[in-house]
């Protein structure tokens, strides 16, 4: 479903007014495959290249080297075709329209994705029920609480029934209740509909409760790729997942 | 004034600002901090506070270098286009309004240079935003006048924009078409005083427009209204002496004439100095007085509404 072959993305960073800049490799020679139906956690310290990877997956950034395929498509060349098959959620910012009520945002999405009105209605009702959005569909997005907004964002990303769901820190800043309801929803989505999910997070609870497979990226390179059990096995017995990840983060520095 | 502010700002450029003692505009500063600072403030003299605010306003805008360069470029392009229109008009009517062609071109570039400092498009003040967010209550509890506070910052901003967005188009105009300059130090001085008076008048008007947000649901109406009046009656499109009949007389008597037409006339030496300065002074004083009344009114309103 997702395929990266020695993909890389570098940026020219200019310091103030100087014309010549340094080349910074945000992602470097990254290769991995995600099979359909997998639920993968994508970990890494801040600035490791997680967001860059995700942006390459949905076609926002064009890779400077290597090959990226999502659902068999080259994201940067077939961005709009791919968009119908992929759902994206950014935890740090909303993909909804700030001044519009949630319902109008969904309507815009229906138009953008050309979802059939009837199909849309059933899906929306379903999502409103499972994500418990009923109470605030008429509220402008800017007035929603973070937890409400995130559930709205999730619904928006799923209205067109994508095969792949990419989540960039979906639980950031959420309270315990919101977190667990979102986790339960994602687990059901993956299990019942077979949606492939790639999730970045700093919350190791997300990883423990959701992901069968974990990938760890650091300095733009893959530092670990395996199951959660394999990850735990790299450390002495009785270590918590925090210990393991801390070791990996600091050890690779 | 302009020269002094720029000199100071150039000297301190790059050094970290030492204005930590100023009452902060930061909404997180609690009432305790404000009170504490109020005591310090009363001890210091008032003039240094406002002088420092001028500096601060100047520096605040100096951080947006690229925006200013872009503004200078855009001002230059529009200046050139406007200059051609005026040249064509003066070729058809030599000596119109007592200007020759070079003076008409000079008029065009001076008025372009005044767009930034007089903030002819939009208010350029943070007040509407702060009224809408309710932060204005914090500004009002300061032991310094909101009017003078904003005026000082605005003068700093105006000086910066004049230097960075005003002078380059002027130089370009001089290179392309040739412009005149004041005949002697007296005329330069008259222009500078008039420029300052124009800035105060412009601020006075924009301050009133900004305060009006407090009583309106949709402030865009007043904004657009102010924009049309300012563009038409300040003289930034055409010299006001070209306006026919009553319209012309009206335009020359309204406050907007004090912002662009008056300083430009004094630069070109086309108007009696004292009379023009008195005209500007009257409008500046009247607008500031209205602003003071307006401040009192919003203070009252904010107190009643509880912020």
């Amino acid at each position, binding site marked *: 479903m997702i395929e990266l072959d020695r993909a890389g993305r570098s*940026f020219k960073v200019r310091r103030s007014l100087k014309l010549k800049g340094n080349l910074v490799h945000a992602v470097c020679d990254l290769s991995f495959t995600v099979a359909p139906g997998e639920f993968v956690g994508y970990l890494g310290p801040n600035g490791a290249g997680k*967001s860059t990877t995700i*942006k390459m997956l*949905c*076609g*926002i*950034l*064009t890779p400077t080297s290597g090959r990226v395929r999502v659902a068999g498509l080259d994201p940067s060349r077939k961005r*709009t*075709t791919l*968009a119908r098959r*992929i759902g994206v959620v*950014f935890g*740090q*910012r*909303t*993909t909804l329209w700030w*001044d*519009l009520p949630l319902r*109008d945002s969904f*309507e*815009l999405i229906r*138009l*953008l*994705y*050309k979802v059939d009105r009837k199909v849309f209605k059933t899906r929306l009702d379903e999502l409103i029920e499972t994500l418990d959005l009923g109470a605030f569909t008429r509220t402008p997005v800017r007035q929603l609480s973070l937890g409400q907004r995130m559930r709205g964002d999730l619904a928006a990303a799923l209205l*067109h029934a994508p095969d792949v769901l990419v989540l*960039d820190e979906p639980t950031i800043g959420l309270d315990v209740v919101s977190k667990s309801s979102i986790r339960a929803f994602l687990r059901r989505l993956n299990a019942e509909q077979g949606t492939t999910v790639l999730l970045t997070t700093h919350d190791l609870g997300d990883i423990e409760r959701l992901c069968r497979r974990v990938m760890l990226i650091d300095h733009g390179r893959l530092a670990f790729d395996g199951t959660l059990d394999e990850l735990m096995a790299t450390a002495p017995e009785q270590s918590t997942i925090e210990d393991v990840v801390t070791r990996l983060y600091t050890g690779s520095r | 004034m302009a020269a002094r502010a720029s000199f100071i700002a150039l000297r301190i450029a790059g050094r970290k600002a030492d204005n930590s003692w100023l009452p902060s505009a930061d909404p997180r500063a609690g009432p305790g901090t404000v009170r504490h600072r109020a005591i310090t403030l009363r001890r210091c003299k008032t003039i240094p506070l406002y002088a420092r605010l001028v500096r601060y306003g100047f520096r605040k805008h100096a951080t947006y270098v690229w*925006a200013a*360069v*872009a*503004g200078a*470029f*855009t001002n*230059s*392009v*529009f200046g*050139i*286009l406007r200059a*051609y*229109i005026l040249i*064509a*008009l003066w070729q*058809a009517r030599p000596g*119109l309004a007592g200007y020759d062609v070079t003076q008409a071109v000079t008029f065009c570039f001076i008025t372009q240079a005044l767009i930034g400092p007089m903030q002819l498009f939009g208010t350029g003040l943070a007040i509407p935003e702060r009224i809408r967010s309710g932060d204005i209550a914090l500004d009002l509890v300061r032991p310094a006048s909101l009017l003078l506070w904003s005026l000082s910052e605005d003068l700093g901003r105006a000086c910066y924009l004049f230097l960075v967005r005003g002078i380059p188009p002027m130089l370009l105009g001089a290179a392309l078409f040739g412009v005149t300059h004041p005949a002697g130090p007296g005329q330069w001085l008259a222009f500078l005083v008039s420029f300052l008076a124009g800035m105060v008048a412009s601020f006075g008007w924009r301050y009133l427009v900004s305060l009006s947000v407090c009583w309106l*649901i*949709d402030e*865009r*109406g007043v904004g*657009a*209204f102010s*924009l*049309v009046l300012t*563009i*038409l009656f300040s003289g930034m*499109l*055409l010299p006001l002496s*070209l*306006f*026919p009949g009553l319209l012309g007389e009206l335009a020359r008597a309204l406050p907007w004439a004090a912002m662009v037409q008056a300083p430009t006339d004094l630069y070109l030496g086309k108007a009696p100095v004292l009379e023009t300065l008195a005209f500007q002074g009257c409008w500046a004083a009247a607008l500031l007085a209205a602003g003071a009344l307006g401040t009192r009114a919003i203070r009252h309103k904010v107190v009643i509404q509880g912020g």
Partner: protein
Amino acid sequence: MVRSYFLLAWTWTRAAMAYPASFALTTVLGLFVAGTDVAVILIIFANTTSLAGFSREETLFLYGTANLAFCLCDLFVSNVDRISQHIKAGTFDTMLIRPVSAWIQLATDRFLPTRAGRVLQAAIVLGYAISALDLGSGRLWMVPVMIATGVVIFGALWTLAGALQFVLTDAPEVTNAFTYGSGQLTQYPLAIYGRDLVRGVTYALPLAFINWQPALYVLDRDDPFGTPGFMRFLGPVAALVLALLAGSAWRLGIRHYRSTGS
């Protein structure tokens, strides 16, 4: 493409019409703001009967044709030049994950139907100029052609302005000089400008084809700069070339887009 454009624009229109009083007010005020340009022309012609050999009605004809095209683009395309704000706010990323071209989403984002007031104002001026000039009906076919040409050229300019902002994210105002500057330039007979400037806007940036060249044909006048007669009909070609250029610049911009933040 066209369908998604209008569906999106309609959604924003509906949102704007939720406040009818404000909607009506901004429409009317837009009319007045745009009216200042006409006021300038009228004041100029209160002082002279001809400007560089062109009468008041001829100038209003040029103003009307250029401004009608300009205001149509202002209504339908100009939001594209807010791209730098979207890039800075990160909302441009969101547009790129949608299955509709980013250009269409930008152009319709916060679509302001109230700008239609300006289109109306331009149309009124043009209508007045055509009736006052008493033009022979034989050449009037050129008027819709030149307006369509103008719309394409201005639209291409705005697209170029947007593409340029991928590079000039910190100084988007530079692009105003090209878009709004072109709108200002074409309001007057090009005869008033210097020869080099007119050459530039004929052969480099084809602004002369928005209204000047075709208008010379409609008004049945010779070009004071002496360009050959066939140039009057080159507008659509120039528009097409500029549009293709703008399209590739836009695509290049998207390919080299560097998303900011996390």
